[in-house]
């Protein structure tokens, strides 16, 4: 089974647009794009993603909080989640992993390589 459906949560529209291009055009993935943690929680169950990509720092509900709530939702609890963040110091990465994320993609990312990165993360899950 290969990766097809990805829920992508990011408030920054510029980054959202590049990632969409990278994941849809290069990676041929089907995306559900949400601009906030709240929106993600509303739409995630219906979309039934195989993987969740979460920006860490968002106004309102941030990435870690969004993930925590998803973990309480039985339909979403076991879907692998990946944080995307510009803060990749080890202590921070460690904290994200402890929250239950399976990996962290550092920002800035290279748009040409994003889809591959996401797919390879998924492949080892």
């Amino acid at each position, binding site marked *: 089974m290969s990766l097809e459906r990805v829920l992508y949560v990011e408030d920054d529209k*510029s*980054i959202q647009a590049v990632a969409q291009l990278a994941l849809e055009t*290069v990676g041929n993935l089907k995306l559900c794009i949400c601009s906030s943690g709240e929106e993600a929680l509303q739409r995630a169950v219906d979309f039934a993603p195989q993987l969740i990509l979460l920006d860490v720092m968002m106004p309102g509900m941030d990435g870690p909080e969004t993930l925590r709530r998803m973990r309480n939702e039985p339909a979403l609890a076991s879907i692998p989640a990946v944080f995307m963040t*510009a803060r990749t110091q*080890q202590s921070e990465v460690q904290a994200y992993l402890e929250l239950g994320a399976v990996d962290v993609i550092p*920002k800035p*990312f*290279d*748009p040409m390589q994003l889809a*591959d990165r996401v797919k390879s993360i998924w492949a080892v899950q």
Partner: protein
Amino acid sequence: MAENDEAQFAAKLAQLREGYIQRIRDELEQMNTLEKQARSRIRSGAGAPEAVLGEMRVIAHRLAGSAGTFGFSAMGGRARVLENQLDQVLSQPGDPGALWTEVRKSLSAVHEELRRDMAGAPPKTPLAEPARAVDTQRVARVAVVEDDPHVGEELLLTLEHFGFDVSLYTKPEAAQKAILTRPPDAIILDQHFDNTAQTGTGWIDSLGESLSPRPPLIFISSELDFDTLYQVAEVGGRGYYRKPVDIPQMVTRLEKLLPFRDQQAFRVLIVDDDQPLAEHFQLLLKGQGMAAETLSDPQQLLESLHRFRPDLVLMDLYMPGYSGVTLARLVRLQEEWRTLPIVYLSAETDLDRQLEAMDIGAEDFLTKPISDAHFVASVKVRARRARELNDLLRQDSMTGLLKHALIKEEMGHERMRARREKTPLSVVMLDIDHFKTVNDRYGHGTGDLVICALANLLRQRLRRTDRIGRYGGEEFMAVMPNCDPRQAWEVIDQVRQHFQAIPFASDQGEFFVTLSAGICATTLVAEEDKGDALLGGADQALYQAKSEGRNQVRLAEQGGTSPAA
């Protein structure tokens, strides 16, 4: 991605970048206003205003996380420094004092980098030169320029058996147009065109800058003289074969020349207490498609090594409370990391001290300050060398495939994964038929070539996710995840058909070789059986293929019934 997709992608990306530039201009404008507000509050003795600082920090953070994606890596790096400084200001209530001067410096550096990026050259990475996405299933495209149609056809057919996508051109003019429009991954060309005075090297030379970068070039010729070799070397030729060409041997060379054969990103760990500098280095390496991590606390070093598994460590020589030399020694105390290359980053220019440090076992030195270009080039070279060395340890030296113990280990991993993911896994044992006769009749050198040819064929024909190992002398093993036995049979039978069509050269003329294979899969053995059952099943099936006349692929039997093909 297909070519026009790629062009479309680049165009869309450029469009997004335009929008992004407008946005950062606005944000930097806002940042200036916020900075002025903060400054006047600080001057009036009211202390740093937390809300304003918080806003500034959010903007800096966003820039740090996004600029590189749009090709403004240097600006992103500056924004990251700014973000860290603002963090520091926020963590110490009261007058930030001199720290605020640093914040202002960083802010103007961000502006400066943006100006520089906008004024001069187009962005370096990734927009101008989009790093090619790693295509794991990619078939190598090879152009053959050969005016003798017989030689050309033979090259075409045999290279196609190996799984290359080959275009044959019998006229240099036709080749020129096609090659310039869509440069292939490698070019094989005749040095002497019969009907013209033109030579292959002369023709390549005449293309000049219009073919840049030049794909790897392999020349073929009926001559073998010093002058021709010199010309080939002069135009940067990477291989030279005399006609009649020993194609399997040439393929072995070709495999090594194809750049995307080793696409796993190099992994570099940067151990440096100077966090902004370390992050700057990290950004530079990431810009080059490498995976880089920084570590400022040496206490975390071993944990970091285990988690990140770098190819190379860059280690600051002096850190508060720690010596890089001692840390290197500590790393070497671990059996697992004994061969991990460590390069010191240091301002140390005293040659004697450098030598003393290298005695401990670090590879060498990079002296700070170092230019970005120099840094990137140095790290790349060292990481590649490290990877090659590591590959040597893991791979069978002749075929480049995994060694016996490692392919078995891979099977264990894949078996566990298949069970977890509930996907089928196939295991294949392949053996070259009558190999002893090949060796006896044509000599061991030729026998080795036959082995390499099969290795290359497997590499070309199997998926990237498949694992291939040299199990013994002329015996190979393939582990094919997410592949049921019927699919595996299709793939391996294709390999069998192509292999029997490859002509091998010897002093007694051309000859052909066949192979037999046996396949077992997780769907054919009991769930609780270990990997040994898979291997045993494949071995049994191979034995059956051999005893029933060779040159065939058999499936293992399931509980006594025979689904064999």
